[in-house]
């Protein structure tokens, strides 16, 4: 005998009205990031601490990467915890506060103004993530909160709140000297808490659930995922503590080894899931998302070179720039390309066609966006990505501008497809 579901209806997922604003904001941020990349190409031939680079980094990290992750996770957290999202209102508040805060912060950074605009912007983003944290914790309390995927998301959110709190302190430090050292000296800590604590943790937590699900893979290894979780967090904690209390290079190297080992184990997990898949045909969106797992290794290799290179070397600044570029325009962007066109068509298909399912011909969700435009976008993306890195190494503004130009075309194509899906008529 089958036991019917009691309590919350497990088919009632998060409304598309909650999710779509995040996707739209992220898509527009991508264009802004690429245009700033073009107009600020010259800055990539100099040191890494410059107003334009600060603005680009925060458009990409917050407007593009984080807004997309926030949007997708409001849809995917219920799948991870097997429970309903606690509050749509908190999700709207997260969007509103982050949306305004990011604009203020990026505007201030671009004009190298650490006054009230940057301070208010930073605080609004912090409040947005606190709303998100409350929503995640409350949702987990009502669902299956003991699973590894949800734990990754929760820990990632806590690291992000620490990252933003430190970022806000750094902004205030420019005006009020609240820290013992200059704000610039804390940037490596601020950046890595965000990149590894937030982005890597979220990608691993959500990816470890979605990759086997999309591939219909028989492979599962929760023990391995817990090992990955502990390795990343141990690496981050060691880095944090050593940075604050005992800043020596060998401790940084140990923390890097721990995180790189975790990345290697995660890639192995993804590869085993791929090998054990039942569904042989893998669509381009999943391929690019899987490929982005390998792209995690590029910044790791860059980091090894950064360690190996003296800070006095002429190559040091270039390596730092390439390292940052590979993270935001490489790894994170590639994941977003894959996951946007793997999740958004289904969210919108659900909205437009669920009443017609089973009685009349409905389009395949993949038909909501243009496959040729998607493939062209990927082509421009890889061309722009490789050329821009070449431009940094050559310190050649023309090559940088051509690379950025290709990335602008890529961002426009990305937006064309996103808005095509939003406007698709049933």
């Amino acid at each position, binding site marked *: 005998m*089958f036991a019917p579901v009691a309590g919350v209806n*497990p088919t009632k997922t998060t409304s598309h009205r909650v999710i779509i604003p995040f996707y739209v904001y992220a898509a527009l941020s991508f264009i802004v990031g690429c245009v700033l990349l073009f107009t600020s190409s010259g800055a990539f031939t100099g040191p890494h601490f410059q107003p334009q680079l600060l603005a680009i980094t925060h458009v990409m990290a917050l407007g593009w990467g984080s807004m997309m992750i926030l949007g997708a996770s409001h849809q995917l957290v219920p799948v991870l915890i*097997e429970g309903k999202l606690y509050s749509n209102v908190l999700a709207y508040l997260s969007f509103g506060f982050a949306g305004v805060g990011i604009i203020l912060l990026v505007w201030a950074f671009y004009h190298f103004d650490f006054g009230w605009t940057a301070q208010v912007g930073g605080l609004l983003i912090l409040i947005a993530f606190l709303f998100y944290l409350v929503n995640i914790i409350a949702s987990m309390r009502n669902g299956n909160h003991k699973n590894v995927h949800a734990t990754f998301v929760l820990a990632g959110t806590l690291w992000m709140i620490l990252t933003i709190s430190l970022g806000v302190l750094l902004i205030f430090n420019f005006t009020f000297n609240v820290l013992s050292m200059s704000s610039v000296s804390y940037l490596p800590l601020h950046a890595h808490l965000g990149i590894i604590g937030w982005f890597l943790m979220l990608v691993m937590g959500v990816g470890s659930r979605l990759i086997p699900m999309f591939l219909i893979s028989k492979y599962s290894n929760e023990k391995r995922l817990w090992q990955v979780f502990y390795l990343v967090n141990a690496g981050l904690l060691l880095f944090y503590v050593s940075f604050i209390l005992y800043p020596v290079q060998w401790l940084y190297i140990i923390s890097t080894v721990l995180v790189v080992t975790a990345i290697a184990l995660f890639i192995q997990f993804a590869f085993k899931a791929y090998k054990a898949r039942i569904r042989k045909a893998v669509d381009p969106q999943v391929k690019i998302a899987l490929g982005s797992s390998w792209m995690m290794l590029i910044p790791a290799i860059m980091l090894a070179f950064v360690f190996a290179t003296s800070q006095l070397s002429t190559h040091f600044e270039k390596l730092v720039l390439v390292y940052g570029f590979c993270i935001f325009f490489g790894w994170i962007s590639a994941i977003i390309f894959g996951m946007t066109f793997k999740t958004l068509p*289904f969210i919108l*298909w*659900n909205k437009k066609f669920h009443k017609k*399912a*089973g*009685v009349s011909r409905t389009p395949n969700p993949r038909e909501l966006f243009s496959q040729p435009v998607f493939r062209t976008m990927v082509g421009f993306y890889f061309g722009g990505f490789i050329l821009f890195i070449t431009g940094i190494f050559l310190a050649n503004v023309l090559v940088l501008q051509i690379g950025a130009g290709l990335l602008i075309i890529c961002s426009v194509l990305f937006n064309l497809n996103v808005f095509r899906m939003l406007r698709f008529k049933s």
Partner: protein
Amino acid sequence: MNEITNNPDLCEKALDVLHEVIDPEIGLNIVDLGLIYQLDFDTEEKVIYCTMTLTTQFCPMGESIQDGVTNCLQFNFPEYRADIILTFDPPWSMEKISPEGLDWLNGGSRF
């Protein structure tokens, strides 16, 4: 209480028409995917009880699939009302995919 029967002819026809309901993400019909657990016809009250599952709880496509089953059964059996009984006990697993479904996922073309 009306007698609810597993009328083999009606069940066979219902299963046949449910092949039209596709899991939009996977692209495979829900019968071969193994989502349909049981079909019962209440011929007096004119109700079809369909006990089914989803590949995962809170699946973003869950509502569409459930609506698809309701629409399909009511369209093909206009004198009946469809009543969906959703269960995750037992949960769906890959072993529930039919040999035809496995063949299709492997790139075969039985459909």
